[in-house]
């Protein structure tokens, strides 16, 4: 069972996972999905991330990469995750379903944190004319 500890989640006795670690793994998992163009930072997340980076500088901690577009809500027994992203090359619906599944599997299996919900918000779609898309049969035909 997991319990929330002020932005962190206790996954076992004496084992605490910080929400930042959950956010970073969520970002990595989401980016690995084919069709995800980028994760998109919200204003609130951007300001919070700047504050975090400033804290890192002041406290002498290594400045971590920004975790754009990821929202982690630690709850008593689990976490709820939010992912804001841009997609392209595949239908947004397909990409969203795969992002949810990939994020959920990665966070639960790699961190042992129970995920109650993964909310995906598609904020932008990269536009490619249907004529510009090469059918898979043609790709196979021209492949050596």
């Amino acid at each position, binding site marked *: 069972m997991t319990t929330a500890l002020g932005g962190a989640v206790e996954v076992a006795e004496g084992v605490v996972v910080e929400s930042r670690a959950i956010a970073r793994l969520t970002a990595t998992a989401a980016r690995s999905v084919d069709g995800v163009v980028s994760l998109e930072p919200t204003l609130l997340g951007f300001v919070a991330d700047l504050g975090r980076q400033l804290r890192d500088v002041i406290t002498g901690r290594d400045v971590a990469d920004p975790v754009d577009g990821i929202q982690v809500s630690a709850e008593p027994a689990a976490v709820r995750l939010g992912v804001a992203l841009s997609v392209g090359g595949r239908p947004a619906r397909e990409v969203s379903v795969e992002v949810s599944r990939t994020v959920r599997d990665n966070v639960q299996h790699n961190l042992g944190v129970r995920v109650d919900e993964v909310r995906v918000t*598609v904020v*932008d779609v990269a536009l490619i004319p249907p004529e510009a898309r090469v059918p898979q049969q043609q790709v196979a035909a021209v492949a050596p």
Partner: protein
Amino acid sequence: MALNPPRRRFPSTGRLPCGRSVDALWDSVVSGAELDHHSASCPHCQTALDGLRALHSATRQLVDEEVSAPPSLLERVMRVVRTEARSGETVPLVSGPDPARISTKAVAAVVRFAVDTQPGAVLRARRCEVHAPVDAVDVLDVRVEVLVPEGYRLHEAALRQRIEAVVSAHVGMRLRELTLDVVEADTREGAT
């Protein structure tokens, strides 16, 4: 019961307990002027001077330090602006335990793109509205204004087919209702 007034370390006048002005000491630190006999031997002045010298040194370092924004900062700020502009209104994309939503502005951009890139036609999409019907799931209602050249014969069925295909390929949803408001552009010279 009468209470003594709270004691202040420094009087509100900016003077030290010995009567010297903190402003005068600060001026001497900044200018580098030689201290007079009192300030050179007074413990209050010496303590204040130590603090003021440290402050002066720190502020000089901050002034001299070149500050430059990380190169990626501007890009991130622009992405935040774009995200905020597009993430206002959303419609359901996936329902269930892991729900997904998509910005109506993103869908509208896809619809306008389908119109603007219709092969062999000179069409321009203008206002576009996207709604999720309350009585149906996994479908969208779309209304788009299409600007056609004067006298142009629009193949409406082909345009509808294209919009539906492009939305399906980019968004992955079907259109339940697609309303085309066709507006003929006035191409006469001087017309706006």
